[in-house]
Each structure stands twice: as structure tokens, then as C-alpha cells.
């Protein structure tokens, strides 16, 4: 924001110079108006008017938002499961594992599927990756349509949220 001030110089009766500063002067005021005000102020006093300075201050500070959080890199080895690629073993579907690599610091989440197909998902650390695997309890689910769900990581102080869509077909 640009601001304007004036300094009115005058001389007092003993010959000493005196100054009167006024801040928050309208930047749109003309020089003549400011000088006239300086003269009026001095005229109300015993001092003798000398000069008026106009000071325009332009604030050059750059205001910016906090640095944008980086989007972490999230890659998935499998984004399309087929139910047929799993076989049940004590309630756990053994087969394709979706391995995620992620370089952020968020918490993993598995989004809600649009329909409940009776599948559950678990995520576990698998070496350097994070594995996401569906499983079921009881009888094997049947899929009549493709189910898409999100696997992602929450936003943190350091990273944006990110997610990957994973589809499951019959």
C-alpha cells in the first residue's frame, strides 16, 4: 500500500528550525494542497513557514501465500484387479497385490466403494511398498459390475493428499 506523509519545516521565533510531520495523508492530494495545509498549520503558530516535503512511501513487500505443498508421488503397480485373479485362502484373497509406492507422510485410506460387495481391504507394509489387498470373510463375494474405489493418503502439513483409483472386475 502506498502511503503519503508530509513534513512541514518552519522556523520558530528564536530562529530554530522546527518540523511538523503528518502521516496518513491522502495520496491523491495535490502538492499545492499539501503545501497549502503546511502553510495553514504554520500560520496558526508563531513559527515562520519554510517548506513542505511530500513523502510517498510505496510498500514493495511482496505478499504471497505459504509455499504450496508438494503433491507426493503415488504409484500403484496394479490399478485393475480381477476378482478371478484372487483365490481364497482362509478368508484372504491370495493373488494380485496392489503395491503402492508413496513418498509423502500421510495416512493411508481406502475409500468407500459405491456398492458393498462384501470385500474388505487391508493395507500392510510390503518391503519398501505398501500393499493393498482385498479379502473377504465367509463366502466369496460375487461381482456383477466393476467396482472402483480410491486408495490414497491424507493431506499433511507437508504434502497434499493424493489417491489412485483401483477397479475390481468380476
Amino acid at each position, binding site marked *: *500500500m502506498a502511503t503519503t506523509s508530509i513534513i512541514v519545516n518552519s522556523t*520558530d*521565533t528564536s530562529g530554530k528550525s*522546527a518540523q*511538523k510531520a*503528518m*502521516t*496518513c*495523508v*491522502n495520496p*491523491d*492530494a*495535490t502538492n499545492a*494542497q*499539501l503545501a*497549502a*495545509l503546511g502553510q*495553514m*498549520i504554520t500560520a*496558526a*503558530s*508563531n*513559527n515562520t513557514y519554510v517548506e513542505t516535503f511530500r513523502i510517498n512511501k510505496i510498500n514493495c513487500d511482496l505478499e504471497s501465500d505459504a509455499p504450496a505443498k508438494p503433491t507426493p508421488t503415488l504409484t500403484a503397480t496394479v490399478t485393475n484387479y480381477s476378482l478371478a485373479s484372487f483365490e481364497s485362502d482362509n478368508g484372504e484373497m491370495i493373488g494380485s497385490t496392489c503395491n503402492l509406492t508413496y513418498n509423502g507422510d500421510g495416512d493411508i485410506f481406502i475409500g468407500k466403494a459405491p456398492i458393498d460387495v462384501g470385500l474388505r481391504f487391508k493395507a500392510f507394509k510390503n518391503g519398501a511398498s505398501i500393499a493393498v489387498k482385498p479379502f473377504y470373510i465367509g463366502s466369496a463375494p460375487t461381482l456383477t459390475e466393476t467396482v472402483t474405489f480410491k486408495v490414497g493418503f491424507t493431506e499433511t502439513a507437508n504434502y497434499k493428499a493424493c489417491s489412485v483409483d483401483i477397479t475390481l472386475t468380476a
Partner: protein
Amino acid sequence: MADTVKSTSSMQLEFSFVDGDTRTVSIDNPKTSINLGAAAASIGSYVKEHNILLGDKTGADSKGLKSAHLVNQTTTKLDITPA
């Protein structure tokens, strides 16, 4: 040594602004013969007419002079030399 008495005076003009803010401008060493009302009125109307002074909180426009005071102050430097 006797006490040293120093007299100072100032004219204090209080301006008001459309955001409700007020600012006091102090003018030192006013003329002893000053007609406070006339002097304040002429400065006040000039400031308002040209919107020269802005409020120092939000930069609000001038509403004009609110009040004017002449302040006479006596400062006495006390002599503490033992009698």
C-alpha cells in the same frame, strides 16, 4: 537557584473519519492571539474539503474537525539546591 518555569502551548485538532476513527493533530507554539474557533475552522474545512488527512487505521476519508483545544502547559524545573 530558583525554580525554572517553562511554558509551552499547543493547539490540538481532533479530526474524525468515516470509519469512526479519530486522529489528533497537534500544532505547537500557536499564536498567542489566535482565535481558536476561526483557526480550527479554516484548517478543518480545508482538510475536509480536499480530503487531505486520512484515518490512520483503514485510510478512511475525512469527516472533518471534531474538536479543537488549546493546551497551555507549564513545566517547572524544581530547584533542589539545599537552602
